[in-house]
């Protein structure tokens, strides 16, 4: 199945040629989780603050659904 991925902040550096305007279309295995997707893309989990699937925050063990929009954010600090 395929999912759409957007990487925020400077997380795009982990994927060669990442263009934030288009994001990525990624093919993943059925039953793949957020953590599996990140491993496939090469984004280390400790660089991630939060992930949303179609606007809902999820944990790293959450399973992906076909066609879902995955937004990946860096940890935030400061104010």
């Amino acid at each position, binding site marked *: 199945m395929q999912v759409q991925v957007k990487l925020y902040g400077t997380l795009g550096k982990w994927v060669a040629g990442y263009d*934030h305007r288009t994001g990525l279309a990624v093919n993943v295995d059925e039953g793949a989780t957020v953590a599996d997707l990140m491993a496939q893309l090469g984004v280390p989990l400790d660089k991630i*603050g939060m992930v949303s699937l179609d606007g809902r925050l999820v944990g790293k063990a959450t399973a992906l659904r076909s066609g879902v929009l995955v937004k990946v954010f860096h*940890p935030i600090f*400061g104010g």
Partner: protein
Amino acid sequence: MKLIKVDMTAKTIRVEDLPAAYKGLGGRALTSGYINDHVPATSDALGPENILIFAPGYFSATPLVNTSRLSVGAKSPLTGGIKESNVGGTVAAALGNLGISAIVVEGQAPEGETWLLKIEPDGQAVLIEGQAYRDMRTYALVEKLVDEFGAKNSVTCIGPAGEQQLSAASIQTTDMDGHPCRAAGRGGLGAVMGAKGLKALIVSRAGKNADPMADAEAFKAAAKAYAKAVKADEFSGEILPALGSACLVEAINEVGAFPTRNAREGQFEHADQISGETMARIIRERGGKTTHKGCAQCIIDCSNEYVDKEGKYVTSSLEYETIWSMGGMIGNGDLDAIARLDFLCDDIGLDTISTGVAIGVAMDAGYKSFGDAQAAIAMVEEVAAGTDFGKIIGHGPAAVGKHFNHDRVPVMKGQSMAAYDPRAIQGMAVTYATSPMGGDHTAGWVVDQNLEAFGGTLDRFSAEGQVEASRNTQIHMAAVDSVGICDFAQSGLAAPGGIENVYQMVAAKSGQPFGEEDWQALGLRVLKAERAFNRRAGFTPADDRLPRMFYEEPLPPHNKVVVISDAEMEATFDF
């Protein structure tokens, strides 16, 4: 360790040693302590009894990075309580290098008089008649002051809003490039400066007389370790340089905490047009600057220079809070218009947060449509022009609400909240309600605990743990604002051994032992002084609340309200 006292009534200047009671203090600890000790709490904030005090942080002009932070204190005309507003740029380092711990401005020049206060390279202060600078906007003012006095000065000044003594007036100060784009925005301190008759403070950057260190070597070693941690941290070492604080737009919007259209919604459909990612791309494409040094001794460079389609300067440091107040809050998805509004506020001397929220309230009341950026620009221009409606906008959101008899006004103690809706991050409800500063995000930013580790180590919709988080952060921040470390360099504090480095630096400068208990005591001392002042000014526990809209109107998309009880609010500070 000099204290310069300027009496604007008598036009006299006295230079004293910093009184023993304030030894070892800087920044907010010094300004809030001094105001609490010397200003009658029920006095008129715009009268001669109020005092305006400028104090660099305790670490300003030391070898530690990111420490050019100036605290400005007074009784606030906006909240009626005590105020400390801090700002970067070059002035704090300049004052520190002159050996000046504080400048105290007392009394009041007769109405119609305009004065400049100049601090010479030897630390002497002079008052200069400044009628020729009256009513000038800040960019033109700084240009003229540079012509007259040279470029090796930092300028801290007010624009027309401060001269009109409007409650949302800021004090602007110059950045590394000499642009008056850095603001002590909150609390209307520009109006206090205007009421004193002081248009600008011109401080020589040539000082070589910083306070001596008890143990310079120990300080240097700890400062070096601290700087290394700031550089090594992903957020301060990589994300802030690339995107600035605007990197927060998409994240806060995604979690539904981005107050939109006067906080009717928590998500803005055009967030991607005004995000840090988009801003950085536009700046790059047009030949502007990301990764820009705004303040002296900064190694993060969170600032930027936003340019127009022709590559011409529009404004410097377009930041998250302004992108929100002039963007989502007024329903405006046009980043060029936001940049223009940011420039206008800096130039006229207005707090971008209070002004954007004031415009949002006016739009919510039906005065103009949400999203009408041209109407927003016109409203800000009216402030400079001094029209009746301009004055209402310039007095901030509460004044606008009163004018339209509209009760959806997101202010606490008269000051507007910032870019985090408390219904979607409950800890911010505690900070907004209980901070002696009024609605203020820097006083106790607890967003990270509520979002980190894939959705928060605290449940952001529940009251549990939020009071404690806010209390601890407010105490900690009161200490941070006193030593004068930039918020964004706090990564150095959070790193292993980071806070110990800070204790060591305080000890190395003062020659006195300093540890965790002293750090806590410093933060508590500040908050106690501020709360004591506010109590004498007439504040009661009933003022530590939010407006009704936050308890009654569920915020889409999560449809939550604030669930922190009054008793919990009151338990935040039991002193």
